[in-house]
């Protein structure tokens, strides 16, 4: 039940004005600096962010192992989520679902993707982000990680990727990864909140989404397989080894850096916050397929929709929820990350996220008969 009104279209940053374009350009620039460091062609002769991280680390007297632009990035990212989380709690915190979900996604980021990796580094171990899993974090199934990390971390990784989150997706929906745990979704659902309405609701965007996200999933599976085959036979076949290296590098560049990072976040102010989650993330694709077979659904209350469009407008995944609501159609969409905002902003309480067995049959119009007083 939404409390108060949002003035989204009256805010320059959220209505695709020049402020939004400028913001987008800055985000693009920051991510290009982060991933590609010095770019002599653009006149960037040194790694600006690395220099900044070193200066900041030295000034704060941090251990040398933390003088890295990735630690700086993790810090900024986590702070942005905390700040954005506070904003979401102020705006939507009257809803227990939104409140608990926001605390969860921010808490997981702080503990599992920020503090623990830093502790590992300070202890002289290789960093590990405990809230990210294959195939989103593709290298966590590469031999380089599996064979070098301690058993418990490998066990955690397999459990999350292959058991826990698929099972949760089947019974409760992929939301328990995508909008309760995942840091990509977490950034979208906190600091990205003012941009969620920019996701395209067109049928065309939906058909592009289906092709692109499953293509990335396919590429992720193929890349993982090739890297393992290379581990097994690469020494005997140097040509295959160099091919496998190119695949690994290519996937990392095109999908990991460009799609998930530069485009995924750079486009926040113009195309909404879930560009990566919707069109690219292989984890979302996999859990989406499981979700489609599972119990999670959005239940529609018959004949109560007033077609106002709040649900569709605020769907970050570009689902035109209103079409289902107007048609009395309870539905499950593979894309849905279960953020719950459609149900929250509906002024007539028409929508409800559910995973219980169906009690009241949906999809039939209300029988026309009167109370015989």
């Amino acid at each position, binding site marked *: *039940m*939404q*409390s*108060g*009104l*949002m*003035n*989204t*279209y*009256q*805010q320059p940053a959220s209505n695709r004005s020049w402020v939004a374009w400028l913001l987008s350009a800055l985000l693009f620039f920051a991510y290009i600096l982060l991933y590609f460091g010095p770019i002599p062609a653009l006149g960037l002769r040194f790694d600006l962010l690395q220099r900044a991280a070193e200066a900041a680390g030295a000034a704060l007297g941090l251990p040398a192992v933390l003088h890295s632009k990735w630690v700086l990035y993790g810090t900024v990212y986590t702070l942005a989520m905390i700040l954005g989380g506070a904003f979401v709690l102020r705006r939507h915190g*009257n*809803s*227990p*679902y*939104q409140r*608990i979900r926001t605390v969860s996604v921010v808490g997981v980021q702080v503990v599992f993707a920020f503090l623990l990796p830093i502790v590992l580094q300070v202890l002289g171990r290789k960093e590990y982000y405990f809230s990210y899993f294959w195939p989103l974090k593709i290298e966590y199934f590469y031999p380089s990680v599996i064979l070098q990390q301690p058993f418990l971390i490998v066990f955690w990784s397999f459990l999350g990727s292959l058991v826990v989150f698929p099972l949760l997706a089947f019974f409760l929906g992929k939301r328990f990864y995508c909008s309760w745990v995942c840091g990509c979704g977490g950034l979208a659902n906190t600091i990205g909140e003012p941009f969620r*309405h920019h996701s395209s609701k*067109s*049928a065309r965007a939906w058909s592009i989404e289906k092709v692109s996200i499953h293509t990335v999933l396919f590429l992720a599976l193929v890349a993982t397989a090739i890297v393992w085959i290379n581990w097994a036979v690469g020494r005997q076949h140097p040509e295959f080894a160099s091919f496998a290296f190119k695949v690994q590098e290519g996937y990392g560049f095109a999908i990991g850096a460009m799609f998930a990072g530069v485009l995924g976040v750079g486009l926040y102010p113009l195309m909404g916050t879930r560009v990566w989650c919707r069109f690219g993330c292989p984890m979302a694709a996999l859990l989406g397929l499981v979700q489609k077979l599972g119990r999670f659904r959005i239940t529609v*209350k*018959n*004949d*109560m929709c*007033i*077609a*106002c*469009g*709040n649900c*569709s*407008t605020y769907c970050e995944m570009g689902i035109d929820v*209103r079409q289902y609501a*107007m048609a009395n159609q309870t539905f499950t969409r593979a894309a849905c990350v279960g953020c*719950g905002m459609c*149900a*929250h902003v509906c*002024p*007539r*309480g028409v929508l*409800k*996220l*559910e995973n219980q067995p169906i*009690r*009241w049959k949906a999809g039939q119009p*209300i*029988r*026309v*008969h*009167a*109370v015989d*007083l």
Partner: protein
Amino acid sequence: MHYVILGNGVAGMEAALALRARDDGAPITLVSAEHDHFFSRPALMYVFAGQTSLRDTEPYDRGLYGRMRFERVSGRVASLDAAGHALVFEDGSRLAYERLLLAVGSRARPAPWPGAEGAGLHYFVTLRDLEALDHEAKKGMRAAVLGGGLIGVEVAEVLHDRGLHVTFVIREGWYFPVALDRNEASLVAEHLRAQALDVRLGAGVDAVLRRDDGRVRGVRLAGGEEVVADLVVSTIGVVPNTGFLAGSALTLAKSGAIETDEALRTSAPDVWAAGDCANVTWLDGSRRPEQLWYTARDQGRLAARSMLGDEIAYRRGTWYNSAKFFDLEYTAAGYVPVSVGPEGNPIVPPPDLRTWFQRVPGRFESQRIVVKGDRVVGFNMLGSRWNHEPLLDWIHERRPLAWVLEHLGEAQFDEELSPRFRVLAREEAVS
């Protein structure tokens, strides 16, 4: 067969879609003066606040008009030539029809008070109303919203959201008496006052006051008290938008609503009417228009079937409705007695009704169940979400109160992790 539909609101659009679903080849023409594309009128408050854009409130993508081969004519109709089977536009041009649906909807009921005519007096029904108010309403101004209904509370909310100081002037003794009882209305009033709204109850309006230069300076209440206001919004209901039919052959009710039979046919051959502008028979036998989104939608679909030659009879089903008063969602299902009729006329409820009511402590939330004899006949729920469908099922299944109280939780529809419904008082609350 050339179908012409005048008005592209929900009744007109649903009729057009229903016609196309059954008749693939017929030309269908949609005529509208307000906006080229069907939009959701109940969503106008969100457009005003900037929560959605006007485009967001269009329920169908714009490609639909092409896919459905709907001809669109934009223009204001001046009169209906029923004998000549044609609509006559303001510029004198004519549009011939073979079958016509009038789905022209409502406009704001004109403010009746002295001083109302002129700048600074607003309504909130059409896009034009919205634009005028949007242009004038600025943060820090004082606004008086006159009329304690659903549009009134929406206007109060959007003006309050914009940073105006709102006085909500309600003629009746409590808010929205055509649907809420005294307990529920006081809960709503408390909620509104908690948002720093100045709610005046039992406050009839005497006059709109203006300065020498004609600008609004406030309203004078019946008791003589003056409410200071830089702008006034009148939300005292809507009237059928049928002025252009005045000289036509169509039979109109005194209210201006178009008289229809149970197949939604008007008095003129090949002319039907649906939605806010159509006079229909209510469950209590009275003849009035049903000014609701849900019934306009249903009437539009049914009128289309009638136009296609089906034998239909429009019967309003068991009542259900929903609304939102600031943060409080409201669901009604079944028969809920009220003490005030739509024209402000007092109503004496049937004598053998009992009411079960509870207010959830510490929250703006209440449940009311109406009992007749040994069975439940109605629900009025405030501040939490309910699936009206099981509620209606239980009414039709003639369930007794004890059974309903035991199962009521199953019909709760709030977001996950919300507080669950509990029966706080089983017997004492029955009055």
